[in-house]
């Protein structure tokens, strides 16, 4: 309780400095929050597109339904496959005439159904990479009654390139923002430590241990970091609401991300404070 009380009194002693620190941390973490919001929405959009990646195996007209059903079960047992749905020739024609209404007259006048039966194979989320999709298409093609297996190779490649770019960009920008935030926190906490150099020197003179001297600063750093994290959360939420109202519909961050953001801000505050106070103690004492 005593270190907490001292940390709070430290905050009270220099309120302007504390507000400045909270704002520095808040703005830094806010930039990370904005980026997280963007990255999360790109990710959701990509997942949505990615969910549509499937392999379609077009079947020969002479394939027996019995064989097809056995094959369908086999394909569903592949580790990559989520489901395999059989579309008969009749269903294919029905869906085509429903989806392509402008050709409905042509479809209704046909004497022979030209559309092949097919198996629509959707893949599990972890197996939607170009390599996995290609491998499943190759395996399915080996059934003698499969005429052709298609999956839109270029399209799948493009989706994955986009995701890689988004992921790489997120990592680089996120790291840059985090380093910037850490530097700002370090400066703010160091200012707070410097403002209390006299107090620290007296503590050292009367024989306080380093860990005792450090503790209130660590708690102060944690509290400042958490306050900065809350400020960043409020700013990010405000931005989210403003964009939703005026520009485009956006998903809010998952709870786990917001909690991780707060924890990150708190830990960052504490680590930066620890580093600053350790340096200061070493500067004041030669041993």
């Amino acid at each position, binding site marked *: 309780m005593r270190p907490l009380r001292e940390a709070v009194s430290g905050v009270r002693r220099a309120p302007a400095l504390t507000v400045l620190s909270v704002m520095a941390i808040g703005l830094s973490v806010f930039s990370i929050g904005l980026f997280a919001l963007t990255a999360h929405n790109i990710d959701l959009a990509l997942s949505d597109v990615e969910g549509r990646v499937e392999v379609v195996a077009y079947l020969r007209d002479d394939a027996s339904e019995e064989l097809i059903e056995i094959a369908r079960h086999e394909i569903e047992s592949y580790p990559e496959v989520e489901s395999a749905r059989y579309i008969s020739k009749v269903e294919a024609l029905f869906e085509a005439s429903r989806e392509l209404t402008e050709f409905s007259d042509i479809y209704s006048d046909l004497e022979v159904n030209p559309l092949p039966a097919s198996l629509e194979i959707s893949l599990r989320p972890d197996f939607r990479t170009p390599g996995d999709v290609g491998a499943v298409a190759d395996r399915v093609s080996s059934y003698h009654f499969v005429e052709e297996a298609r999956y839109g190779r270029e399209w799948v490649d493009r989706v994955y390139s986009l995701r890689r770019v988004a992921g790489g960009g997120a990592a680089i920008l996120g790291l840059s923002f985090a380093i910037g935030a850490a530097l700002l926190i370090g400066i703010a906490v160091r200012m707070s430590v410097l403002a209390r150099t006299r107090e620290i020197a007296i503590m050292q003179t*009367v*024989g306080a241990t380093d860990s005792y001297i450090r503790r209130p600063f660590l708690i102060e750093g944690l509290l400042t970091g958490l306050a900065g994290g809350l400020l960043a959360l409020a700013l990010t939420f405000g931005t989210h609401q403003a964009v939703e109202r005026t520009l485009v519909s956006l998903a809010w961050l998952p709870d786990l991300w917001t909690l991780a953001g707060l924890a990150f801000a708190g830990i960052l505050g504490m680590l930066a404070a620890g580093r600053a106070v350790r340096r200061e103690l070493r500067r004041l*004492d030669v*041993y």
Partner: protein
Amino acid sequence: MVQLRSVTKSFSGSTPAVLDVTFHLKKGEFAFLTGASGAGKTTILKLVHMLHRPSSGEVRVSRYSSSRIKRRDLPDLRRRVGYIFQDFRLLENLTAEENIAFALQVTGTPGTKIGPRVQKLLNQVGLAARAGAFPRELSGGEQQRVAVARALANEPLVLLADEPTGNLDERATAGVFGLFQRINASGTSVLMATHDAELIRQHRNVRVIELEQGRLVFDSAAEIVA
């Protein structure tokens, strides 16, 4: 208790602040450390308090040696060696009793023991009636008494005082010095840096260690004249 053996202290490139100084302050002894400004008095006190590391030679305080002490041992050493500054160095936002209690709190004294101990110290330095006053409400002599009480809080074996009467008038000086004598009479060694020749002249029975440009030029205990 406190031993300096051929101690030299230089600060980056300048002439040594302390040069080849050797003396021994025994348990329960009182000594003046004197010399003109810049003679090396404060450097000697900081070496004893291990705020400075000697460039050569060795400082021993109780069981600690400057050449072997670890950073983690410093708090224990500093509790055994009280330090008093010329400018008092009190925390302005704390009252007299809070300044004394501060020294006990930060060294881990249990809360229940702090109150009675602070009361005893306030009585010892004659400030019981001024316990709730802030430093700015106290005279120089009173502030120095608070600083002395703070230095005594952890019952040190040695008391180092750096020009403790430098900012005080004659009457306050006599009061603070009397306090040091009482502390010394109870068994605490005292090493008091001062350039107050009058004070030294008034107390001829007290050992005098004199420095000049960092060198020890006179020690009345050894009767050495350089």
